């Protein structure tokens, strides 16, 4: 028999265990997905192969920011750090996807660990800290893009580490230690920025925080930070004869689709709302009753930068920083809510207005929090539901949960098809997909001369030169910065023995030239996508 006064704490423990079990289950699913992708030798998400090409170029000591008007019409629009980190793997293992995907996956684990550490440091609640870290890994968005050969989640890792390092830097009294921590934190922000441009929002949040706490110090460090950041920028621009600016800045000014932004905000809230609300309550608490932390400012900046998700080519990944922030801030709020240490100064205008009259209800709120906190994580677990629906374990699990595949290749995803985007990912690859990929590689090998492939894996694995980066050509063409004449001339001369198309993201005039001089002779399906194989019209 449970004593009456022990009923609530016992119920709290049972619900906390249930929440942990649910979020651990997502960690297992994430591990299965990551393992599956790491073993898959071809492009899984559109454009991954070009990140591998960037890595190969860096491993040779070359910049991937090249003149796209000239053969092989290749360039990258991403900053270099992720590819530089992966470059030693090219020296050791040659061109392959697994190490880039492994780095991305490990980066998300580090981020989750940093979130857990920060939550524990602020709230001293190990179970909540664990739940906060797991909640990050359970997010549909993090699941989708974590184990890809892409730089986005490595940027989020650097951002998270930076704010965790800098959170209490102003309170360090020892000058040498404070300077060391500032140096580490700002170096991490610089690393995030040179991993992906989107980290500018985190840099703004951090400097706003430092300015609030100590304006003079923030200006001095800000000047140093700007000097180093701009110095690297100018050096790269000079070393690439201006291509760095053209390819990574000018070409990234894409069409803005407001409906895509609104759709992605709605999706983000519908998936993460159970934790968004407590996170925003923490921001409001700090704003009105306490002092703003770097975490709250970072969360607000992360949410604000989601506006850019409406750019052509952007997607749910633009909310990854906001997701890390909301897991962290909600974890702190819920820990402190359980601890009952959210203080409301009696002299505060709003405390006098709203909190003081309700003081008598405090014991009731404390009791309520014991149930509410684990229930929020359980609710979150239900909102982000995603799992493969096929296989010896997943079929019965899907049946038990009453869900069936609603995405490609036997996969249930509560995110559905990403609003306004085109990233149909999350499912597991199959041996049939691998066979299909090798079939395409074989066709590329058999083709005479160079091959124009929309994905790099096929040409890389066939030991042929990678020609073009289609989406980058489209970015440049949309901004009037791509002269397609040389590429179109090669297509008109049927210089390519084979053309492999998937999403058809080439600029329109290139696609028209292909349609006029090549004909589709074969379709091979891989990962649920149709790969069109076109040969010269005789």
């Amino acid at each position, binding site marked *: 028999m449970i004593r009456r006064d022990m009923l609530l704490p016992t119920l709290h423990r049972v619900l906390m265990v249930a929440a942990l079990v649910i979020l651990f289950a997502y960690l297992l699913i994430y591990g299965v997905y990551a393992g599956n992708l790491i073993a898959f030798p071809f492009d899984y998400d559109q454009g991954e192969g070009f990140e591998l090409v960037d890595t190969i170029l860096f491993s040779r000591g070359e910049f991937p920011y090249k003149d796209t008007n000239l053969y092989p019409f290749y360039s990258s629009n991403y900053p270099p750090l992720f590819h530089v980190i992966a470059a030693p793997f090219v020296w050791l293992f040659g061109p392959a996807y697994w190490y880039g995907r492994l780095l991305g996956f490990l980066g998300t684990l580090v981020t989750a660990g940093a979130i857990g550490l920060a939550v524990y440091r602020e709230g001293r609640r190990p179970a909540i800290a664990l739940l906060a870290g797991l909640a990050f890994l359970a997010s549909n968005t993090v699941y989708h893009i974590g184990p890809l050969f892409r730089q986005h989640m490595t940027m989020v890792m650097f951002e998270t580490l930076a704010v965790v390092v800098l959170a209490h830097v102003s309170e360090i009294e020892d000058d040498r230690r404070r300077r060391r921590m500032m140096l580490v934190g700002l170096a991490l922000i610089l690393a995030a920025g040179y991993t992906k441009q989107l980290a500018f929002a985190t840099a703004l949040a951090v400097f706003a925080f430092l300015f609030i706490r100590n304006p003079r110090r923030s200006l001095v460090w800000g000047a140093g930070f700007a000097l180093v950041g701009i110095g690297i920028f100018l050096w790269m621009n000079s070393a690439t004869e201006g291509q760095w600016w053209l390819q990574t800045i000018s070409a990234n000014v894409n069409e803005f689709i*407001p409906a895509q932004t609104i759709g992605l905000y709605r999706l983000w809230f519908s998936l993460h709302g159970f934790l968004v609300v407590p996170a925003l309550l923490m921001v409001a608490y700090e704003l009105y009753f306490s002092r703003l932390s770097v975490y709250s400012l970072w969360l607000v900046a992360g949410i604000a930068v989601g506006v850019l998700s*409406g750019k052509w080519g952007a997607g749910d990944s633009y909310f990854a920083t906001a997701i890390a922030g909301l897991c962290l801030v909600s974890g702190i709020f819920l820990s402190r809510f359980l601890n009952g240490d959210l203080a409301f100064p009696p002299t505060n205008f709003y405390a006098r207005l709203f909190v003081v009259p309700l003081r008598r209800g405090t014991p009731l709120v404390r009791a309520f929090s014991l149930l509410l906190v684990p229930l929020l994580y359980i609710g979150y677990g239900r909102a982000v539901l995603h799992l493969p629906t096929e296989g010896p374990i997943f079929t019965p699990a899907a049946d038990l949960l009453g869900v069936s595949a609603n995405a490609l290749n036997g996969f249930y995803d509560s995110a559905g098809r990403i609003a306004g985007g085109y990233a149909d990912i999350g499912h597991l690859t199959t041996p049939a997909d691998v066979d299909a990929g090798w079939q395409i590689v074989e066709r590329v090998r058999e083709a005479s001369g160079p091959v124009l492939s929309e994905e790099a894996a096929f040409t890389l694995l066939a030991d042929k030169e990678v020609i073009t980066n289609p989406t980058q050509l489209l970015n440049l063409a949309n901004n009037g910065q791509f002269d397609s004449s040389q590429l179109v001339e090669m297509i008109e001369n049927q210089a390519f023995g084979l053309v492999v198309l998937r999403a058809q993201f080439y600029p329109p005039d290139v696609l028209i030239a292909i349609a006029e001089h090549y004909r589709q002779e074969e379709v091979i399906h891989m990962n649920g996508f149709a790969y069109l194989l076109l040969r010269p019209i005789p």
Partner: protein
Amino acid sequence: MFVGGLGAFTAIIGIDIIDVGREGGIGPAQQIALGLALGLAVVGVTLIPLGDAPA
């Protein structure tokens, strides 16, 4: 925050007043920006009763 939000709101509206040659009125991106600026101004107003407590 109040002044910043109000300033941003005025500037966004000002684009249409100054650049009279533009067509299509206030577009969706402008609507989003106006909403954000107005939100910032509203939060700024609510902070006024707190006096000069450090942020």
